[in-house]
C-alpha cells in the first residue's frame, strides 16, 4: 500500500478528482482516505472516474444510499467523515453523481449546514473565550491554544465562504 500526503479541501473537489484519475492512469487505485492522506494499491493502469459526495444521516438510510449508488454502477472506495469517494470505470460516457442544479445546490447546502454546526465551538473559543482570557493576562495554556484555534478558524471561515459561493452559484442557476 502506498501512502500519499496531500492537503485536500472541500472546495477543491475538481482538483482532487483530477489527481485521483491521474493516479489510476498510472496504475494506482484509491483504497482509503485519512486526514490529508490518500492510500493506494497498485493496479493495472485504467481510466477511472472519481466523484466525491457529502452526506450526513442515520445508519439505516446509508445502506439504502450506498445500494442505490452500487446499482447505478459506482464503487465506494473510501469514506471519511461525511465524505464518500466513489469511482467507476470510464466507458466513453460522462458520469456524475449529480446532474441537475437542484440536487447540486442541495449537496452544498448540506455541507454549509455541517460547516456551520462544526464552526460554532470554534468561533465560540476563538472570538469569545480566548480574547477574554487574553485580557485577564493568562498566558501559557491559552497562548498555545491560540495558535491552534486561530488557524483553524481562518481555514474554517475560508471554507465557509468557498462553499457558500458554490451553493450560491447553483442556487442562482436554478432561478434562471
Amino acid at each position, binding site marked *: 500500500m502506498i501512502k500519499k500526503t496531500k492537503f485536500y479541501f472541500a472546495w477543491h473537489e475538481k482538483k482532487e478528482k483530477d489527481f485521483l484519475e491521474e493516479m489510476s492512469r498510472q496504475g494506482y487505485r484509491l483504497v482509503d482516505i485519512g486526514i490529508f492522506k490518500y492510500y493506494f494499491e497498485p493496479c493495472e493502469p485504467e481510466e477511472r472516474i472519481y466523484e466525491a*459526495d457529502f452526506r450526513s444521516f442515520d445508519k439505516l*438510510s446509508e*445502506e*439504502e*444510499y*450506498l*445500494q*442505490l*449508488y452500487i*446499482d*447505478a454502477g*459506482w464503487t465506494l472506495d473510501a469514506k471519511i467523515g461525511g465524505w464518500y469517494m466513489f469511482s467507476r470505470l470510464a466507458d466513453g460516457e460522462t*458520469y*456524475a*453523481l*449529480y*446532474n*441537475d442544479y*437542484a*440536487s447540486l445546490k*442541495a*449537496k452544498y447546502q448540506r455541507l454549509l449546514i455541517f460547516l456551520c454546526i462544526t464552526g460554532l465551538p470554534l468561533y465560540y473559543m476563538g472570538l469569545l473565550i480566548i480574547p477574554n482570557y487574553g485580557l485577564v493576562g493568562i498566558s501559557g495554556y491559552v497562548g498555545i491554544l491560540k495558535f491552534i484555534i486561530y488557524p483553524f478558524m481562518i481555514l474554517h471561515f475560508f471554507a465557509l465562504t468557498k462553499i457558500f459561493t458554490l451553493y450560491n452559484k447553483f442556487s442562482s442557476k436554478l432561478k434562471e
Partner: protein
Amino acid sequence: MTNHIKSTTIKIDDISGGDIQKYDIQVIDIGVTGMNKFSPLTESMYYILVSLIEPLHGYGIIKKVEEMSSSRVKLAAGTLYGALTNLERNKLIIATGIDPDNKRRKLYQITDLGIDVLNDEIRRLEEMILNGRGVLND
C-alpha cells in the same frame, strides 16, 4: 394545495387572433395552476413521480425514466437519492416495501398528494405548450 379552474381552457384561436389583452388575461386565470409549493417540478422530480405510478426501487426508476424519455433523461444516482428523500419527506411518494432480492433497496410509490401535484404540473405544462404552439403556428 390549490383548487384548479377546470373549466378554463385556452383556445388557440383566441391567442392567434392577435388579441394580446385577451391572451394576457387568460394566462393570469390559469395562474392558479402551478401555485402549489412544489411547482414547478424539476425535470428529475417530474419523471420520478411519473415512473412511480407502479412500485419501483431507485435503480428501477433510473431505468424506467431512461426508457420513457428514449435515453434523454439519465438520472444521476445522487440526484435521484436526494429527490427521493425530498419527495418522501413531503409525502408525494411513500416507501411501500423492500425489494425481495435485496433488503437494502426500498420500493417507492406515488401518493394521492403526489398524483395531485403531478396533475397540476401537467396542466401547467399543457398551458405552456398550448400558448407556445398557438403563437408559433400563427
